[in-house]
């Protein structure tokens, strides 16, 4: 339409977190987020990508993760835990797809370990892909690197198809979204771990042996809530933990404010006011002792925000998995 250069020179293009609020609210179903991702694709084709993002893309291309850490270290987080490699069984009832952040980031690794502890405590038979696991590509798609995304889809589907996998469960809503909505394969049965645990609670097979006398609030991850309309399951888990007093943040569910870790923003620093800082202040103001999250990006951005707003010791950022572990989950 003649605005190509003007559109592509807009610095705002890298601001978007792909939180999907625009898509959900557009009265004409225009999908502004999709348009923005396409504009990013044009920039990627021209090589006009912020350096930090370029490094992340290169890391994924070479090492299967945006941090560019060697593949041989991918499953180091699980060394002291009871986990099976996917190749050990003929039929895999449940594949736990860990994801890059939860594999490599020291803080997020604690959540993966917590999830494994919970699954074991519940007597669930599951496997992981170990060092064969690869980036899911959700952020790569959102950054606009569709060529690399297609490679990841092909590699991952080939990998999955080597095994007879019944169901995949993910730590990250981003991986969940990629498999569910961006892989074009309807036969992949995939759940976010909050859905999986909420199902177990519904079936009455979950018991908590300890009380958690805490005021807890919850940040809806964009790729779980606004992208996939999953709002009740995380709340169900939190509210089932004995002793917990749950209260909602001022803006929640469909109105939730993004932590600004999505859409490649994990690797693009933009100076100025941070949404995560306001969110942390809201949580402190309402007297929450725990700001629960269900996404590794929320975990990392909020922990940063707790420090930068000087609220250490007042509010603690914890993944729902960690709450479940603390409450002494057992099979009933």
């Amino acid at each position, binding site marked *: 339409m003649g605005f190509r250069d003007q559109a592509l020179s807009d610095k705002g293009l890298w601001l978007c977190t792909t939180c999907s609020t625009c898509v*959900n*609210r*557009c*009265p*004409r*179903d225009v999908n502004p987020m999709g348009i923005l991702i396409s504009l990013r694709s044009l920039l990627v084709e021209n090589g006009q990508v912020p350096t930090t993002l370029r490094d992340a893309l290169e890391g994924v291309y070479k090492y299967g993760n945006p941090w560019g850490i060697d593949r041989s270290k991918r499953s180091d987080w699980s060394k002291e835990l009871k986990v099976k490699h996917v190749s050990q069984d003929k039929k895999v009832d449940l594949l736990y797809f860990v994801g890059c952040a939860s594999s490599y980031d020291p803080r997020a690794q604690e959540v993966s370990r917590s999830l494994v502890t919970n699954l074991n405590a519940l007597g669930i038979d599951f496997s992981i892909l170990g060092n064969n696991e690869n980036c899911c590509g959700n952020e790569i798609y959102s950054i606009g690197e569709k060529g690399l995304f297609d490679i990841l889809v092909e590699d991952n589907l080939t990998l999955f198809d080597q095994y007879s996998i019944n169901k995949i469960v993910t730590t990250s809503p981003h991986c969940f979204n990629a498999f569910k909505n961006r892989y074009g394969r309807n036969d992949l049965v995939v759940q976010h771990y909050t859905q999986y645990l909420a199902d177990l609670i519904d079936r009455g097979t979950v018991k908590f042996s300890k009380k958690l006398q805490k005021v807890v609030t919850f940040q809806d991850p964009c790729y779980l809530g606004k992208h996939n309309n999953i709002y009740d399951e995380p709340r169900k888990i939190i509210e089932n933990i004995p002793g917990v007093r749950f209260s909602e943040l*001022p803006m929640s*569910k*469909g*109105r939730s404010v993004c932590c600004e870790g999505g859409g490649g923003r994990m690797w693009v620093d933009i100076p100025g006011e941070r949404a995560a800082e306001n969110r942390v202040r809201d949580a402190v103001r309402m007297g929450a002792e725990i700001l629960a999250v269900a996404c590794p990006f929320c975990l990392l951005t909020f922990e940063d925000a707790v420090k930068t707003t000087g609220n250490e010791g007042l509010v603690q950022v914890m993944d729902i998995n960690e709450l479940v572990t603390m409450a002494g989950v057992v099979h009933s």
Partner: protein
Amino acid sequence: MVKAGLTIGGGIAGIQSALDLADQGYKVYLVEKNPSIGGKMAQLDKTFPTLDCAACIMTPKMVDAGRHPNIRLLAYSEVQDVEKDGGIFKVEILRKPRYVDETKCTGCGVCAQHCPIEVRNEFDEGLGVRKAIYVPFPQAVPLIYTIDKDSCIDCALCEKMCQANAIDRQQRPEQVGVEVGAIIVSTGFELFDTLKKEEYSYGMSPNVITGLALERLLSASGPTGGRIVRPSDGKIPLKVAFVQCVGSRDEKSGNLYCSRVCCMYATKEAILLKEHVSDIDVTIFYMDIRAYGKGFEEFYQRAKQEFGVKYIRGRVAEIIEDPKTRNLSLIAENTETGEIIEHQADMVVLSAGLVSSTNDNLKKTLPIPIGDDRFFASSNPKSDPVKTVLEGVFIAGGAEGPKDIPDAVVQASAASMKASIFMRE
């Protein structure tokens, strides 16, 4: 052919069609599900574009319908079943128990004075209260009290106080069977459920109200006696913003249509606010102003030029409440300047669209085709706009689609004429 008609729904369209049919000598059964006829129009303060008092038009018509020798008014009743036998419709009507004897109640209101229970008044859109024994509004037709059994605590004070011995707490539902030759469906519309637009904070922020609630605030017979106050603290708002197209022209709500009345009712309410509160600032956020009817464009121009109502072209993206002051901040793009604005307001009015009413039982009993907009469809919108594919069944008013009062009245008169011709054949 039976020389009798049935009108389902006693709003302005139902009343008009019943009156017109009755005036032609037909017997008419006018069925209304609520305790009183009057419908949505009875809730309005003034009408656009003339600013005539709605009650002054509505009340005489309601009274006429209530005492017309040819009209049998069956209020607080619902059509349960319709069967066609040759050229005759056999209609089963459920008379819901009022727990008050209609033949004895004089409408004096002593019962309500003594009733200890107060609940939110639906007629005032939740802004005021009524008792558990009540009439929806003072001009109700019929002027007979009704006990709301869900709220009643069975203290029997009303029974003790009633001089006419009209209270009958053991009253049972009653089935009435009537035979008619034609049916006019005028079941009206409902307001779009504004809770569905969570970004507008309705239900979370007390100072976000609907246009219909504002009508009640504006009305001299409303819960505040016509004083404009905001719900959170009873203070007079000095900055009011309207949000247009809430649930209209919106793919996300599944309502692709324009509700046709919101531009004008917002303009009317804006003018009335200006008349009620001096120095009030009123801003209307709109997509397009649709001032298509007779006198509408002039009305819109008057609002801008004479009353200083501000119009900003832009759909509001989000309304955020300040938890301390309960003031509201509206985020929108002014699409005429490309500017993103954050507009401050003390109170926000959502111009909720009109949606088809959800009487599923009636839709089953009278299987008139439903359009994509979920309203009843006429057999031919051009040449037969009030006829349906069911022989002898006609439609009028909001049941057929969103429309204003003049259009509803025109359609009602047309439907009664078509029904009359049908019964003459």
